């Protein structure tokens, strides 16, 4: 695992993309294939199951570090990360070992067969055989809190360079439900796709926003200028649900959300229509709550997603539907290269023969003959329970990731971006005792860069919850400001955006405010600085 620990510090030490890719490539060529796969698994969020809970890990580390418990806690408070605190506080090791990453992970997985005393003995002797950096990454893996300072796309880039495969091909191959124990590096990088994972989704194709600011709405002329003849375009309402891919292969069904979470069980209402589809079908669409022929507001869906158990009440209050807008696999064939118009025809046929049309819905194509028509229609989006339009070129293939050119979103709402709260400060007046002023950050590579401060927008109840969170998750205090553990994601709305050299993020927002708390999102799903800068164009 020394190589992996070194990789981790090397990645930590640079913030340059090319450098990170170089470091990754160097690492991949030197370690055995099993380690490559384990690394890929860790870097794509496939952590081994936690076998010892953090409370035990912490109490054993306390014993071994030979300092009073309060001082251990205080140190943890200063460092802000349990794995790192332990790595720093344990006595220096006198022994060493050369176990590989996969060997360590195998040991961690086999802890399930040990009792508590045996686990403790194993952990202490493991710690005492490692150096500080090794201990740190080991602790992160062990406690299931492994997060790496590198985006998945860089890892894919490194593997693409090494294997000669396209990044889009690799992105697809590493999706889905694989287990690092059975996944094989050689079959990952061979020319023909050898996967037998029938659950595997395709990478989502994501659209860019077409306009810069909501107060400087693009006129229909400007839209015409950039998109050309309206006859080449298809317009659909933009739905406010959860983007999802629904799969039926060999009579088995899988529903994936955009965050690459398998959410099949969360949406039992969707199962019958999926089972009825011909085998080898993959649909792209929006999972959304739907009642009396109307989409329900997003927060109803959010409440439902947040619940562990789907009670009868939840099923009645927030019934699900699937608004399909694309078909990317048909009769077992990957049809992403077909033009949208042909894929749409296939989708419509599938819909036609469905006996569950109230659940399996088609995203209607909005007819328009000029951009001016569409401009006016768009202002009525809210009446249609939509947030604006999706504009898709009729001859466009289904691409991988966020690509400019063929798919655009044209929203009515203020511009918005999903951001992570990183600092909090107490408010004034009525809220002088509560943490109500927050600073938000977005991703720049693996770092969260602050870009906006916002005060308003949450309900009193939410403010209390956030306040509670801030108090329990403070990493540092400086004057009135607290650095908080990056964990909460909020959708930040704003009226405009300008370039700014005075800001670290390179942009200054006008009237930023909190639109809503995205409890459904993990911090990895927050937006990136590139997305923010796209608004400038």
């Amino acid at each position, binding site marked *: 695992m020394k190589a992996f620990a070194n990789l981790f510090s090397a990645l930590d030490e640079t913030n340059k993309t090319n450098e990170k890719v170089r470091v990754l490539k160097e690492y991949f060529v030197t370690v055995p294939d099993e380690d490559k796969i384990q690394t890929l698994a860790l870097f794509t969020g496939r952590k081994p199951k936690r076998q010892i809970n953090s409370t035990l890990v912490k109490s054993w580390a306390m014993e071994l570090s030979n300092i009073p418990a*309060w001082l251990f806690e205080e140190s943890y408070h*200063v*460092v802000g990360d349990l794995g790192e605190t332990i790595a720093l506080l344990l006595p220096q090791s006198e022994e060493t070992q050369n176990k590989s990453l996969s060997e360590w992970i195998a040991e961690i997985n086999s802890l399930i067969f040990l009792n508590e005393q045996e686990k403790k003995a194993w952990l202490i002797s493991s710690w005492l055989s490692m150096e500080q950096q090794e201990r740190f990454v080991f602790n992160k893996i062990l406690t299931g809190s492994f997060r790496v300072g590198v985006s998945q796309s860089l890892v894919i880039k490194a593997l693409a360079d090494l294997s000669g495969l396209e990044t889009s091909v690799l992105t697809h191959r590493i999706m889905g439900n694989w287990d690092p124990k059975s996944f094989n590096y050689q079959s990952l990088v061979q020319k023909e796709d050898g996967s037998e994972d029938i659950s595997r989704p395709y990478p989502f194709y994501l659209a860019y926003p077409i306009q810069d600011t909501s107060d400087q709405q693009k006129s229909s002329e400007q839209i015409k200028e950039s998109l050309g003849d309206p006859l080449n375009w298809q317009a659909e309402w933009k739905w406010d649900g959860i983007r999802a891919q629904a799969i039926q292969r060999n009579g088995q069904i899988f529903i994936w959300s955009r965050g690459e979470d398998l959410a099949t069980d969360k949406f039992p209402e969707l199962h019958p229509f999926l089972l009825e589809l011909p085998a080898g079908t993959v649909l792209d669409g929006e999972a959304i709550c739907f009642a009396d022929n109307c989409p329900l507001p997003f927060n109803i869906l959010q409440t439902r997603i947040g619940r562990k158990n789907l009670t009868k009440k939840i099923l009645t209050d927030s019934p699900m539907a699937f608004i399909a807008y694309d078909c990317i696999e048909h009769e077992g064939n990957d049809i992403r290269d077909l033009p949208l118009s042909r894929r749409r025809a296939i989708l419509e046929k599938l819909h036609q023969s469905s006996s569950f049309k109230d659940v399996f819905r088609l995203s209607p194509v909005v007819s328009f003959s000029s951009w001016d028509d569409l401009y006016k229609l768009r202002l009525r989006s809210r009446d249609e329970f939509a947030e604006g339009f999706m504009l898709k070129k009729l001859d466009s293939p289904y691409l991988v990731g966020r690509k400019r050119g063929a798919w655009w979103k044209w929203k009515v709402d203020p511009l918005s971006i999903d951001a992570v709260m990183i600092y909090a400060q107490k408010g004034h007046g009525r809220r002088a005792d509560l943490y109500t002023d927050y600073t938000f950050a977005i991703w720049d590579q693996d770092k969260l860069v602050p870009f906006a401060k916002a005060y308003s927008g949450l309900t009193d109840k939410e403010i209390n919850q956030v306040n509670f969170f801030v108090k329990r998750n403070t990493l540092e205090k400086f004057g009135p400001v607290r650095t908080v553990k990056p964990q909460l994601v909020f959708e930040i709305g704003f009226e405009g955006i300008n370039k700014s050299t005075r800001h670290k993020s390179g942009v200054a927002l006008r009237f930023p405010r909190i639109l809503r708390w995205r409890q459904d999102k993990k911090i990895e799903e927050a937006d990136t600085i590139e997305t923010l800068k796209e608004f400038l164009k």
Partner: protein
Amino acid sequence: MSRPLLEFNEKGIFCSAGNFYIDPWRPVKYAVITHAHSDHAKWGHQKYLAHKLSHEVLKYRLGNIDLEIIDYNEPIHINGVTISLHPAGHIIGSAQIRVEYKGEVWVVSGDYKVEDDGISTPFEPVKCHSFISECTFGMPVYKWRPQQEIFDGINNWWRLNVEEGKTTVIVGYSLGKAQRILQGLDLSIGNVYTHGVIENTNEALRRDGVKLNPTQRATFESNKDEMRKGLIICPPSSVGTPWMRKFYPYSFGYCSGWMALRGAKRRRAADRGFVLSDHADWGGLVQSIKATGCETVYLTHGYTASFSRYLCDIGYDAHEAHTLYGGDEISELDENPVKLVNEYGEIIEPVDDAEKNSADKEIIILEKPSKIGLTDSEKAIALKKAKRMGGAL
């Protein structure tokens, strides 16, 4: 009850028997100075006493002051009080101040580190009854590696940069860290260039007879190709300035004890972070305090609350002392993780006040009340606490 030999008042550490102050932060008649960092050596006192190797640096920083210099272990007597200076190992010329009166001994550590850095006279523990110690890194997570390991890391990184055609830029505060880095460099790799503030400090030290490796001022006229192979030592204030950008392409490394924590390292956004500090680490602090044989400890700088609690746990009579040390000093600012956030939620990086005028300093104090200056109410509380701690203390 008799008055304690040393007490903390609103001007600094005061010895009433000898009628002098140690490292006072308000103007006084007679100031004994532990070292030339600006949180310890302030402007405006009538008379200064300091170690001889601080002579030129103090004159450079404070102008034409009335300064008496003595060597280590060279006692002087004022009103029956014996004062002597003892090596603190923090920077060149840094001293602990030993004060003896009627058989009672107090020692003020100033800032100190235990490891022999090769340029500062190495730290020597001094037996005493009461010890006023700094504890900038008074948390057990801070454990330093031997400096040779760090220098090897710096030199290897420098070699790598030469191979890649990048100038090496290394950041450390101008008095102390800069010279320590300079002496640890492998000069066979290339030339060493310095930022103006650091070169002025080097010149002052050389005037006092300190032998330093050869350096040249980094200017835009400097030979570009030579500089690609070279290393520039800069103060923290130069990070991100147009001055620094002129040397592009470069790789930029940061030397500080705070680099021991991953979060602090990442926040700096340096290409490399080296854990190198001129303060004692946790082990060094505990070991030094034990070596003084003292019963009572007063703590300044940093984690005073937790460190004094720990010392009480292990049987000392330990107290937090409220001082103005740490924070408003270039050396400490560099090493201080305290962050300021501006209206856009961005972190304002600390500045090197050697290059700032006093007006700027005022603004910094206003923005950072809890760490640099005390507000009036905080001062009142500190004084009240001090009084409660025994007599005027």
